[in-house]
């Protein structure tokens, strides 16, 4: 039952607590708190009835930290106190739980991708010439991270711009076995010239 602990002054810091119980209580508090807990907060919110020194709480926290070394969670000190966190090396495996939808691709991205697919190998400058607007680095980055485009060399013109081409993943994604399976476009300017 929930005790409404309108703690009267006599009940504050009057009880003794052994190390084992103190460790369990601190561990539980750290796990159920929705924010990092400092020694002061632990003492005020979870241990108000007990006679414990800050030093003892700190020792207990050290003991818990040692206990959780190399496990699935670890006790870390952050600016406002201590909190349990997953270790950094598990992040990649845990990523599967939280899925975020990437934003829909803009027209600029789709046009760039289409030009690279149909006119490869092609430089950024050539894409910009055709589209009539600058191609942002973010677009190239997005398509590169998606593994849909890659660089295949440099064009031997002043500045030696990078040449882009589509990748095998690009073909796989669209279930194509080769580029000539891309839908033929009807009236089409020859962009090369």
């Amino acid at each position: 039952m929930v005790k409404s602990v309108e703690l009267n002054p006599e009940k504050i810091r009057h009880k003794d607590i052994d190390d084992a119980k103190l460790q369990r209580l601190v561990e539980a508090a750290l796990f159920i708190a929705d924010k990092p807990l400092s020694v002061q907060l632990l003492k005020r919110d979870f241990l108000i009835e007990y006679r414990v020194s800050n030093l003892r709480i700190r020792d207990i926290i050290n003991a818990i930290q040692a206990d959780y070394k190399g496990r699935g969670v670890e006790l870390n000190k952050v600016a406002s106190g201590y909190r349990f966190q997953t270790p950094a090396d598990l992040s990649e495996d845990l990523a599967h739980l939280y899925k975020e939808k990437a934003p829909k691709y803009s027209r600029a991205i789709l046009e760039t991708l289409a030009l690279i697919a149909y006119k490869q190998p092609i430089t950024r400058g050539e894409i910009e010439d055709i589209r009539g607007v600058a191609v942002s680095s973010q677009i190239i980055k997005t398509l590169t991270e998606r593994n849909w485009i890659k660089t295949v060399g440099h064009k031997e013109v002043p500045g030696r711009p990078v040449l882009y081409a589509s990748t095998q993943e690009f073909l796989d994604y669209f279930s194509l076995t080769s580029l000539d399976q891309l839908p033929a476009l009807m009236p089409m300017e020859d962009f090369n010239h």
Partner: protein
Amino acid sequence: MSDPSAKAAIVTPQDSNPTKGVMLQQVLPFALLRGEAIAEKPQDLFIPPDALEIILEMFEGPLDLLLYLIRKQKFDILDLPIAPITTQYMTYVDLMKDIKLELAAEYLVMASILAEIKSRLLLPKQAVEEEEGDPRAELVRKLQEYEVIKNAAENIDQLPRIDRDSFIASVELAENFVPEIVNTQVDLAELVTALQGVIKRTQAYEHHHIQKESLSTRERMAKILATLKDADKAQPYYNFSDLFTIKEGKQGVVVTFLAVLELIKESLITCIQTQVYGEIRVSLPKS
């Protein structure tokens, strides 16, 4: 109507078990009725001495009230004394009406059921039993059934609960945690639409066609460039003949050849022949 002194003795609504009503001493009025203190307890009626309206509001319905009366006076539920129970029940119902408590219709229905059972019990015993057995049977069954559920609800209330008896542990994710990104889906048609958009904007309607051959050539161009790029580190050139795959047949050879020509034309590769009729070395242009 409600006297503050009576209110003081009220059982708090949270303390919802009416059986906790404590029998008070005669000093206090046992109830307030029409503003008058009733100091004496009627002979055959048990009414808790606490403020009536609050107590009455605590009953979950006529079955709850009946059960309360039965249990309080230790009546045998299987041999229900209908006459006294009916009298007491009616007193309660009248009290509820008197203090203008919003009386659920169910209470009146129960009152008529009790009256009916009572009247049937007054008939000669034999006649009744021959017809349909004990007229109390149905009511007793209902009371028992309700009591089982009332008890079950009390048990559920005692089960350990989250945030009351137990708390769920949770931990934060590491600072380097990045959620999995579900990639945007793109349709091939979107790609075509995008390209057609570009074409329209260029406003150059020279009726060129992208032909399958030229696409194949451009694909092969990209492939050759990629091959040469990979080769670049280990060996600065590729033999011209190594660019061809015999298995592809005549068409494949033609495509590769066209690709090489186009690459030379666009200065994307260089070809060097070190001796007459010797192997042509194809490489990326030196910067």
